[in-house]
């Protein structure tokens, strides 16, 4: 991968709004044809960053090069990129076809050629051709999503930006669209830069993920790397529900402070344990007694909310295990050192 040229290079990219720094000195190369996702909580600066990349805002400092060509000063309308907005920003006063053809019309493409390409794009985003003359206001949420995507593709961009386009869509449709987007990425071979607050969403689609906090990337890696080797508690906790145990020195011994359990061979200050790493069969290396506060059936798994020592933990066991355990019971839970992810901050 190292030899493939960078589609987009960010060098010290910075954006300040008054005294706050939304994007703080970010440098990275995004590869040709990559599905690169930036994940962060609201206020992390991810939207500000993508606006800089699309040319909607000017950076306070830093450079931006597209295939080696400096585009830092190039206005949005002359950048060969297109964005799918969080609000979709469809032209409600126009038809589906007119929306998709907008960029082509701006380029002066002849009407017949525009129409042919628009119908092609409708097929690509899996909308029937008879949507072409419809007003976009008559489209459902998912259909509007597809029109927005087709409109962005209509400019035949080198890079596509997505600013949380699926955040307002219900769970099932979102899952469908995630897969479709991934397939579309594979079929078009274009570079996708995707913004989301959901690491779960990022995992499904991305080649690489950057976790963003306070205007900077905390960690960059493949979904596998982010999942297996989070760099710190922030990245680990972004994955969803995780248990974090603090390791301390007490009387010359290393212990899990909350559980009052010896922790020999501790490789970091914090032990990150995924809920599925906790077992209720007391077969693991580290065993502890826990009070069951809550029991939730999640279909293929059962989730227990536990109180042990001063810790509140979440355990998830496969269905069929722990069936006899009730809320209010005290039971023995355990985990193995191999399931621990060690972080220092």
């Amino acid at each position: 991968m190292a030899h493939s040229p960078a589609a987009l290079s960010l060098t010290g990219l910075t954006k300040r709004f008054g005294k706050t720094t939304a994007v703080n000195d970010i440098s990275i190369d995004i590869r040709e044809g990559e599905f690169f996702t930036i994940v962060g909580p609201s206020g992390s600066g991810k939207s500000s960053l993508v606006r800089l990349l699309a040319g909607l805002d000017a950076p306070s400092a830093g450079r931006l090069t597209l295939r080696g060509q400096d585009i830092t000063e190039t206005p949005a309308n002359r950048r060969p990129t297109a964005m799918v907005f969080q609000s979709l920003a469809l032209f409600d006063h126009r038809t589906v076809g007119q929306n998709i053809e907008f960029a082509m019309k701006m380029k002066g493409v002849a009407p017949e050629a525009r129409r042919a390409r628009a119908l092609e794009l409708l097929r690509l985003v899996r909308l029937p051709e008879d949507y072409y003359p419809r007003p976009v206001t008559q489209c459902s949420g998912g259909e509007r999503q597809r029109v927005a995507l087709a409109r962005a593709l209509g400019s035949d961009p080198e890079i596509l930006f997505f600013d949380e386009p699926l955040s307002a869509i219900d769970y099932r449709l979102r899952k469908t669209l995630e897969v479709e987007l991934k397939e579309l990425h594979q079929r078009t071979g274009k570079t996708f830069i995707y913004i989301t607050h959901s690491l779960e969403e990022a995992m499904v689609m991305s080649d690489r993920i950057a976790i963003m906090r306070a205007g900077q990337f905390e960690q960059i890696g493949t979904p596998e790397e982010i999942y297996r080797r989070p760099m710190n508690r922030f990245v680990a906790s972004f994955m969803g529900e995780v248990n974090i145990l603090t390791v301390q020195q007490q009387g010359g011994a290393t212990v899990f402070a909350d559980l009052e359990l010896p922790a020999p061979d501790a490789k970091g200050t914090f032990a990150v344990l995924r809920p599925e790493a906790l077992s209720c069969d007391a077969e693991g290396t580290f065993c502890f007694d826990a009070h069951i506060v809550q029991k939730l059936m999640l279909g293929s798994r059962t989730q227990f909310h536990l109180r042990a020592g001063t810790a509140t933990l979440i355990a998830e066991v496969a269905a069929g295990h722990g069936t006899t355990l009730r809320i209010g019971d005290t039971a023995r839970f355990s985990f193995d050192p191999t399931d621990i992810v060690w972080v220092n901050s």
Partner: protein
Amino acid sequence: MRRNPGLWYAMPLILMMLLFFAAPLVIVGWYSLMPPRSFALTADLGLQNYRSAFTEGYGRPLMWSIIGAALTTLVTALLAWPTAKILHHHAGRWASLVTALIALPIFISESVRLFGLSVFLMPGGGILAGTLNAVFDVQIGTILNTRLAALVGMIYIHFPFMLFPMLLGVAMIPADRIEAARDLGANRWAVLREVELPLAAPGLLVGGLLTFVLCLGANAEAAILGGRAVTVITAAIEQRFNYAQDWPMGAALTVLVILVTAALVFPALRRIDLGRIIRR
């Protein structure tokens, strides 16, 4: 009838509209078909007043009114668009202050403002000419008592009527649509043509109609600033009713003005979703 209480509730309004809106219109229409200089409403109907309207020199005042209204609408629209955009973008204390400064003069009598403008434009010791002479030693003439002065007055008086609907219109353009258009390769003109104007169209149409219709019926500007340089149709109508005591002719001219207005207003209103403006 018991099944439709809405009709009963609407009755007072219906009666009022019939009595004070429909009936006067009918009377004016009827008078316009009477023989010249008669004061009775009879069955002796004829179109002779309308024929006279086009042969006896009334075409000119009507034309002046229409041209004046059209020019005023155009100029105020060109002035109000950037103003509205700036006020919308810099919403806050300064924008409120500027808006108030534009709105406040509406509460002062139009004649007073026009006489003020007249004093401003006067030659010699007028505010503009006098100041330029005293401070910069520049001597200028005056546009007072010309068609241009009447037009300047019309623009000055009607600017707020264009600006405020346009502000509503501009507020109907979501910022992200402009950004999306830019992102898809639209330059400033294309953004204006393809996104801003269509989205702000209801505000533009309302402002345009309001200004045009008000200007078509305006005569104070021509009378106070235009001197004898221009006679507008309202002045001609007034003269027919008062001085000439020719009610049927006045009525025929009135009907013509109403027809011109209706020909513009009805097609335009059909294109506006008033509900959309009110909801915003």
